[in-house]
């Protein structure tokens, strides 16, 4: 009995831990700018300080912000699709084939997963400017791809190892061509793993900040995290808090939606890549 109470208390604590800051930023996004500058520290909007959807309207009317959301969605999606295709090929080879250099691939991806991203922004900044990739979509897609590959390769090869590949042969014995056997038997079994890798890759790309601020200079390619940090003025201590909060909430919505829908797959992917791989 005592145990049960402990677990319930634990669950409540976890929920508070996870959701309180989210509730706070939502609450802040509905406060009016005046009520904040007057200095009214409080969790919920004070009486008369409720701005309704005005902040959201103002953020959404901002051309730069809309452009940044568009950049983020486009860049993250393209990077995810390309990275998952490349990672699927590699993971298939690692899980299924015997070849020289297999160890080298795994150690290289391990090394890259540990790589300090900031170390690369200088040389990349220089190179991208020289070859014209600075401040363009490909200029971000390429680094995102290579930094998400290790995670995608690990997750996918862990998944692929669990697939009973003999079923492909069994289907061929039953009269299917090899392409049919692959498409009808292996693809449905591999799809969930590929999908999980895609979600994790998308998270990385959507979350990136270092490349986003270093390799862009205009709204041409600047993604949402970078755009939020440059939102209005250089003075970091006097930002339009409630507008920024509204922007932050909008930038978070895609992630929350993904989490809500694919919660089980994400947990499986995070743990299989790291623990079994």
């Amino acid at each position, binding site marked *: 009995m005592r145990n049960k109470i402990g677990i319930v208390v634990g669950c409540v604590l976890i*929920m508070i831990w996870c959701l309180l800051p989210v509730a706070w930023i939502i609450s802040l996004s509905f406060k009016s700018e005046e009520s904040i500058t007057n200095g009214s520290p409080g969790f919920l909007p004070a009486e008369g300080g409720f701005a309704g959807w005005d902040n959201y309207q103002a953020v959404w009317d901002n051309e730069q912000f809309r452009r940044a959301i568009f950049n983020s969605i486009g860049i993250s999606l393209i990077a995810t699709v390309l990275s998952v295709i490349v990672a699927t090929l*590699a993971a*298939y080879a690692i899980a299924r084939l015997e070849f020289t250099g297999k160890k080298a*691939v795994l150690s290289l991806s391990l090394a890259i997963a540990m790589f300090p991203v900031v170390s690369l922004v200088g040389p*990349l900044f220089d190179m991208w400017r020289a070859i014209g990739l600075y401040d363009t979509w490909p200029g971000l897609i390429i680094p995102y791809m290579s930094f998400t590959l290790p995670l995608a390769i690990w997750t996918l090869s862990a998944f692929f190892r669990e697939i009973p590949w003999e079923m492909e042969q069994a289907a061929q014995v039953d009269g299917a061509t090899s392409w049919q056997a692959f498409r009808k038997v292996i693809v449905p079994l591999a799809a969930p793993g590929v999908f999980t890798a895609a979600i994790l890759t998308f998270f990385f790309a959507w979350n990136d900040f270092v490349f986003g601020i*270093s390799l862009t200079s205009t709204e041409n390619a600047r993604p949402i995290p970078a755009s939020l940090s440059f939102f209005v003025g250089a003075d970091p201590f006097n930002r339009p808090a409630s507008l920024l*909060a509204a922007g*932050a909430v909008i930038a978070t919505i895609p992630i929350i939606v993904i989490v809500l829908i694919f919660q089980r797959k994400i947990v499986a992917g995070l*743990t299989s890549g790291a623990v079994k791989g």
Partner: protein
Amino acid sequence: MSAVTAPTQGKRQAGKKPVASDRAKAETRLGQRLVAPAIILMLLVTAFPMLRAIYLSTFDYALTAPEDREFLGLSNYLTALTDPLFWQTTGMTVLYMVVTVAVELVIGFIFAMVMHRVIFARGLIRTSILIPYGIITVVSGFTWQFAFSFQNGFINGWLPFVGDDFNWFGETTPAVIAIMVSEIWKTTPFMSLLLLAGLAQVSEDMVEAAKVDGATWWQRLTKVILPNMRAAIMVAVLFRALDAYRIFDNIFVMTAGAQKTESISFLTYRQTIEQFQLGMGSALSVLLFLSVLLVAYLIVKLFRVDLAQARQES
């Protein structure tokens, strides 16, 4: 696992060692072709720029005056390593890493224990724990910066031991605490999920057996559960420590490096991108890379020592 590798093993045995069969050769070729795009991409964005960073680090090279580029040899490194600012930021980075990982390990483990035991509302708990993991670090930084702010935050109002007008970002210690809180909030879920996977691999029978033998809760935890999860703990600590060592986003958003909260990543960024000192920035990049390697080496070594000790004990 064995079912999957069995066919290839069988094949290799059939071919015997000295004569690499055509089939094995074809398999090697196919395998190498399939991994080639991944390898090329990873090398293109890491190895090549890193070599270029080593090259650039030997120059006095500012983007604002590219014609004045001058070969310096190792003097950029000497300048960096003799500058107190470098050591101060390195010390701060180590502090961020040690404190956040230690706190996350404890809280993450408690969360993992709760999630492991929970029977009802599993989906709800797991969904909520993924929310901080998914949120952009920059957004988390803003959220906590505003929460700690005396102008629009609520934390001063909730904490009894600080005044309502206490400025968390006015001094080093409170600013560092605020940055750490944001970092810990955002990444504890990741830690707890990895530990949860480790917990799931501990056999229930062993825990039960220890219980029957009269082991207390604490004994079961320290003698049965924790030693059996060592691999999972090591992975979680290694991943998180390396990640924490690269701390950048939260500092950028919350203090912009003011009040001596700067990390080594931040210093590197500032030199390279803000001040266009590509030579010095590259030298710092190389030093950052080397220090990450050192941290990784030390952590792996630390856990190995623990492994050996544990084996002697048992």
